């Protein structure tokens, strides 16, 4: 008997009789831009509202003019990143500007699928992260978010603010391993 068979047999003999699955509703809630911004700021992110997506470049020039190596398929980039980019180049990225798909007002998180990342490591290895988000794609809570998503693809991440830790005496420190700062440009 393989371990697989052993485990499955043991479950079959030890599990209780079938319990009904509850009906999980899609809860209502406030999915406003305002709430999204407030929550995002409470978790260490920054939100900037734009009139159109075209203003992204202007915003990046304004807020990140001191950063050298920028990777993006939305604004002007000077580091070219793709699936095959090696670690040495990825490590040099100062700023990544990428598209977010769905924002969640309740917790300030944004869905970023692999297809938007240029390289799976980019949103994490970059020193600073900017996500660009269409305000019409902000929903109230996670039920609504997963409902809106059509599957999670090969790889995708909900990102909520910059990387952080409180592992030393519960003191919050922004910028653990991932991005040191995180801005959302909402249009």
């Amino acid at each position, binding site marked *: 008997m*393989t*371990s697989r068979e052993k*485990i*499955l047999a*043991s*479950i*079959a003999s*030890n*599990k*209780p*009789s*079938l*319990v009904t*699955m*509850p009906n*999980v509703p899609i*809860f209502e809630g406030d999915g406003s831009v305002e709430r999204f911004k407030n929550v995002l700021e409470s*978790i260490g992110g920054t939100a900037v509202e734009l009139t159109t997506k075209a203003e992204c470049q202007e915003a990046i020039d304004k807020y990140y003019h001191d950063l050298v190596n920028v990777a993006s398929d939305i604004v002007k980039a000077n580091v070219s990143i793709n*699936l095959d980019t090696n*670690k040495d180049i990825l*490590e040099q990225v100062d700023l990544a500007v990428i598209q977010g798909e769905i924002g969640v007002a*309740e*917790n*300030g*998180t944004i869905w970023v699928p692999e297809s938007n990342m240029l*390289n*799976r*490591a980019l*949103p*994490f*290895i970059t020193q600073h992260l900017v996500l660009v988000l269409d305000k019409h794609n902000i929903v109230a*809570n*996670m*039920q609504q978010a*997963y*409902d809106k998503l059509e*599957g*999670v*693809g*090969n*790889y*995708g*991440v*909900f*990102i*909520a603010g910059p990387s*952080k*830790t*409180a*592992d*030393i*005496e*519960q*003191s919050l*420190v922004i*910028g*653990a*391993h*991932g*991005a040191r700062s995180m801005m959302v440009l909402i249009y």
Partner: protein
Amino acid sequence: MSHQNHPELAEAFNKDFERTTWHDETLWFVRQKRDKAVYPIPEFQDLRTLASEIKDHTLSNLDNYLIEFEQNAIKNGVKVHWAADAVEHNQIVMEIIKNSCKVEGRNPRLVKSKSMLTEECHLNDFLEKNNIDVVDTDLGERIVQFRNEPPSHIVLPAIHLKKEDVGETFYEHLGTAKGEKDPQILTEAARQHLRGKFVAADVALTGVNFAIAETGSFVVCTNEGNADLGVNLAKVHIACMGIEKIIPDLHHLSVYTRLLARSATGQPVTTYTSHFTKPVEGKEMHIVIVDNGRTQQLGREDFRSSLKCIRCGACMNTCPVYRRSGGHSYDFTVPGPIGAILSPNIDLHKHKSLPFASTLCGSCSDVCPVKIDIHVQLYKWRQIVGQANELPAAKKWAMKGMAKVLSMPKVYDLSGKLARGALRILPHGLTHNESMNPWAKARELPDAPKQSFKEWYEENRQ
């Protein structure tokens, strides 16, 4: 190896009054953050009920969901392994590493994000003995790894340490300035140190918070970004999961992602909620599905709901005993109330003091996001410890004696009278002798009245 029980370790912890205060307050602060994150969500209690019921359903159909998960994962190009116990789990992980990374002249390098399962299996020791370099990348885990200590909390591994302790450890291992204790500076030092490790790693290992049967995906939640950074830079990803991590589909996942971080740290959600489904072309993804006592717990009707645990640690933060005895006093991978109902399933003899390391106040059950009736299970484990003859002999016979007395009213009345009489006559120094009466170490005994209520009633009302 001699094994200390919870009361002894807790007593030692309490010797340092100030540090106990600090530990209690630090964790209470986390509990308060949790409250602030929970109260404003109107459907929070409904979510707890749903989370509990989804898991009840899933556990009752666990074998089929695991099979569904496996089939979908395989379709996604993921290699699925099954381990009956810790030994097999460790062996599998080692073989994946050795087979997939043929490096010359140096050890294979593994970076790990937090996984309580691998702690449970003592994977690090095993791999290191087999010439694999292991680096824990969660900051708290890295700190305790440097110090050669086990984590003292499942979400906050280094919560028992003060910043001065961490400063000392980093001075020793990372060359930070002597006496440096600023969390910002210490975290930056760890960031620089670990970036090097991420880039150099051959294999990355993660735990699994949730595994989705419908898609064959698994979800990993972190705040630091260490799981994604490790996995996306290494050639091989190994994810280790207990069989109970399964949930049916993404819609159900939405319930748990609303509960987990709020319950754990009071954040509205973890910074990164990462969904892994398919490996990148040319890379490998492995899932190791582990039993290690879980199917046995599934068979224990009174205790099976402990498998619903999503490892948020809220029961630790709220537990007045945990806060005043520290995670290490439990001497089990998962400490606190949930650990006290999981551990007897693994080794009743070794962990027999844990179900008694509680006042049964019930705060753990009320805080639990999946509504495990932890305090009820503590009570039930006590009975099993009692029946397995694992109680100290003196306690056992005292209980039997007491039960006899209390079922015979006349004997009860008389023994009460005699005991009160004795308490009234004997000198304070004797009745409050600390070695004979632990009560009296910090407390006075109640005054022994001349009359019991019964005697008063007889005299006044009959």
